[in-house]
């Protein structure tokens, strides 16, 4: 044992580790899932999962509880063995590598700080495990604590810190050995709303400071995903239901589940798609004709859904194009917005509007319209959902 300790402290062993992290990190590390399946007994919780996180990117995995997000992340970390497929970090196939050989940083929901170690020892843990020299540790630990704004807490024990502070330490601890890949599993879920908001800003800033860090961010909170991620993957029942750039996924969801999960879209059932040009198409909603983006190139004459975000609706006075009308079901004032639901041809539709002095009353008939360029036709996916 003492021999190991002595070896670990020699700068000769430590040097390549720290040195390699700095310049090599400039090209970052890709995370690749290739047809990864995970089963627990007879239960398959990840079905042939394929996803790539490009170097320096933040990809958020979102989905309801139990959809397999944590399982996917743990497969990268090495805590679940895939029953099929491959996992790549950079060009390395890590599928059968032990967790301690994968060189990843990991942050979990409950922080999991080591309770009997001071903050600085927590942060130094990964460096020591990698055999870094004492003078390297002395330099790196304050650096990491400064990065998360925890410099003055180095001597504290975890129990002497608030939740937000503990999570900062957990992030510093994960980043100390300069991993190229950072895995975050619901890192903000245990924090209250206000702190969550500010931590989200800090995570975004952290990634601006470490632009080469590849991040896989698991959350059930779509606003975290939209704020942080370049790309978002939406999961359900162990399958990737949708994947795309955050904005494009929000604006042009490829299916009903993606539209509803990301941003709680209204999905009005429409019929008889009539493409107008490359981009736009006309559809029928009851006895009105609406136009929308045909982003997914739906075929002439088919039935589908039109995806309208609650904030895309405007009150219309005369019969403007893309106008629908309905009976007000509820009106709710929320300070900076009014939330209104109305019944349009049997569909309950949600809209938000700037606060009004005279909001519509329940039972009143209102007419609203939307900008055709802002809404997208979405294929009905009940058959293959």
């Amino acid at each position: 044992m003492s021999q190991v300790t002595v070896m670990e402290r020699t700068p000769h062993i430590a040097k390549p580790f720290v040195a390699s992290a700095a310049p090599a990190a400039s090209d970052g590390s890709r995370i690749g899932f290739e047809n990864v399946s995970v089963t627990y007994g007879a239960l398959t919780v990840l079905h042939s999962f394929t996803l790539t996180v490009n170097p320096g990117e933040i990809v958020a995995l979102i989905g309801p509880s139990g959809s397999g997000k944590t399982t996917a992340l743990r497969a990268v970390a090495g805590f679940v063995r895939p029953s099929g497929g491959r996992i790549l970090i950079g060009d390395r196939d890590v599928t059968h590598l032990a967790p301690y050989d994968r060189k990843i940083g990991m942050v979990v929901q409950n922080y999991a700080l080591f309770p009997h170690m001071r903050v600085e020892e927590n942060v130094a843990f990964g460096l020591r495990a990698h055999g870094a020299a004492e003078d390297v540790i002395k330099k790196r630990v304050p650096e990491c604590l400064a990065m998360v704004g925890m410099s003055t807490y180095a001597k504290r024990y975890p129990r002497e810190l608030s939740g937000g502070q503990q999570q900062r330490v957990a992030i510093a601890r994960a980043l100390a050995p300069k991993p190229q890949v950072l895995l975050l599993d619901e890192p903000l879920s245990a924090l209250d709303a206000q702190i969550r908001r500010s931590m989200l800003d800090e995570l975004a800033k952290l990634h601006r400071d470490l632009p080469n860090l590849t991040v896989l961010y698991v959350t059930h909170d779509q606003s975290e995903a939209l704020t942080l991620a370049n790309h978002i993957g939406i999961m359900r029942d162990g399958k990737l239901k949708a994947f795309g750039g955050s904005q494009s996924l929000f604006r042009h969801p490829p299916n009903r589940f993606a539209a509803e999960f990301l941003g709680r879209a209204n999905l009005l059932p429409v019929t008889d798609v009539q493409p107008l040009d490359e981009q736009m198409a006309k559809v029928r909603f009851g006895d009105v004709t609406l136009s929308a983006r045909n982003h997914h190139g739906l075929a002439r004459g088919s039935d589908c859904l039109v995806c309208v975000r609650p904030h895309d609706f405007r009150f219309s006075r005369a019969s403007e194009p893309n106008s629908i009308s309905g009976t007000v079901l509820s009106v709710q004032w929320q300070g900076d917005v009014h939330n209104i639901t109305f019944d349009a041809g049997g569909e309950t539709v949600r809209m938000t509007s700037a606060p009004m002095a005279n909001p519509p009353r329940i039972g009143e008939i209102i007419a609203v319209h939307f900008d055709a360029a802002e809404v997208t036709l979405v294929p009905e996916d009940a058959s293959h959902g």
Partner: protein
Amino acid sequence: MAEAAIAAAPAPRLRVDSLWIAPPLLILAVLFFYPLGLIVRASFGEDAPSLATFEQVLMSSRFLDGLYHTIVIAVSATAGCLVLGFILSLIIAFVPFPGAKMAGRLIDTVIALPTFLVTLAFTFIYGSAGLLNETLMHVFSLDLPPIDFLYSQWGVILAEMTVYTPFIMRPLLATFSTIDQAQIEVASSLGARPLRIVRQIILPASLPALVAGGSLCLLLTVNEFGIVLFIGAKDVITLPLLIYSKAIQEFDYTTACVIAVVNVVLSLGLYSLYRLAIAHFGGRRAGLV
């Protein structure tokens, strides 16, 4: 005025409450303090109280030998229990193998068995006419049993380890189940191999359980009687055995009582250490795990 009323209020309740201590005290007095007092009294001789017997006994080689064996056996057995218990608990708690749950339950069963039973089983297996020796003698055509560690200090230590290791494992397994799995996983993702995780994460979290279990073990082994008697090694005389032979075989009650007093003092000393350790670790680590 109001303050006086508030201050006065708890007083009568306190007096009624304090009455509840009387019955347990009474029972304790009859069952414990009185007999203990008799032993202490008897240790000072039958007539005028004197320390003469104390001097005599404490200087005698039989007593010193007994004290030596008691301490060596207790300390070795406890150390053995701690090491064995820690390793076995680690395996049961962290190495996924079929039957790990069963193994955990078996621990409780061993605790429930009378201590001499294990010794008896030991005799059947390792004794001079036991399974192992018979087999070896048969296979290698030997005249004498080749294995005779059982009738020595080592036999006693091994038997005590077998009996008392579960007493270490139980608090340990309870502690292990409270260790956050995420801590172990994070440590592993930070590059820590299993041995480092055991040393730096699991062991520190287990210290209170090890100290508590170890102290209990030490107490029990210092006072162990049945196992030593059943092994029946000629040269291995411990204090409890010495008390027994003085009182029951030699009718030397004064000497027996002197040794008993020493034994009680030893036990109480260990118990105080145990309380101190619990207070230290329990207090410092409270709310940590």
